[in-house]
């Protein structure tokens, strides 16, 4: 996949799960994995840390 920011490579692991975070190896931008209606793996900008996120 290509980074939406810098067009660098975003490597998708073979065992990737929906909701997993992946990063661009060039600029470090983080993306969240999702699947489109056809079931293909896609990326969207990762969520920003919420105030109630954690353990």
């Amino acid at each position, binding site marked *: 996949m290509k980074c939406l920011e810098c067009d660098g490579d975003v490597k998708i692991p073979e065992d990737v*799960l929906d*909701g997993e975070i992946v990063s661009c190896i060039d600029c470090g931008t983080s993306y969240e994995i999702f699947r489109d209606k056809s079931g293909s793996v896609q990326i969207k900008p990762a969520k920003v840390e919420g105030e109630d996120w954690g353990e």
Partner: protein
Amino acid sequence: MKLSLVYEVVRWEEKAIHAAAKKKGIDIQMINIDTLSIDLEQGKLAQFGDIALQRCLSYFKSIHLTAVLESKGIQVVNPFRIASITGNKLYGTLALLKAGVPTPKTMISFTPETALSAIEDLGYPVVLKPTMGSWGRLVASLSDRDAASSVLEDREQMFPIYRVYYLQERVNRPPRDIRGIVIGDQLVAAIYRLSAPNDWKTNTARGGKPQLCPITKELEDICAKAAKAVGGDGLFGVDLMETPNGLVVHEVNNTTEFKNTVPTTGVDIPSLIIEYLQTQKK
């Protein structure tokens, strides 16, 4: 028995639990909370199976979904009664105190003026924590009256939960604390979390470094007692500090992270979680 794992973002932990289940030949349904829209009058929520492992990052989302699932007869780990206590530092402290678990001296105030008075009763330095939150977020060490007044003034401009002043003595401890992982009522692994350089906080999310912590009888007993205090029989991350007078528990975490604990201790926590879920009767 059918299992599900509810998540919001797949961290190392969720992926490892999923892989552990797969390795054991167990089908665990992965459910992203952000894809859900639930009619509360709907009778059954079959996709969640019999037992749902609650692993959402957002505390507010997770506690609300847990309430819904339990109302539909689905067992949630951890259950609402535990999550509602461990999700709030004040409720957690009250439970620890009630059970006689050693915990740092804590005061609660509701205005900057009474908070300042409580801080001076505790004696500088004092730690101010939001009652809800994680990863050391907005936890402040107040070293003197000027610092305390400034931080309290800032808090007054924030969301109301931050205007509940949970104040704790800053314990005289080495530059580390302890994270114990409890499954059921058993301490299965423990690490020291060493403060990052130039930071007094030990949270590994903030750069704290993990180191193997030996499991002693004292550590086992206090972790089991702390887990029982907040409701018992679940999955917990117990945070402790070493003081000149022994161990104290400052927090019990509900959806504990363990990506640093597994490689540091060699304990296969994801597999132990799956085995624990399989022991749950349904």
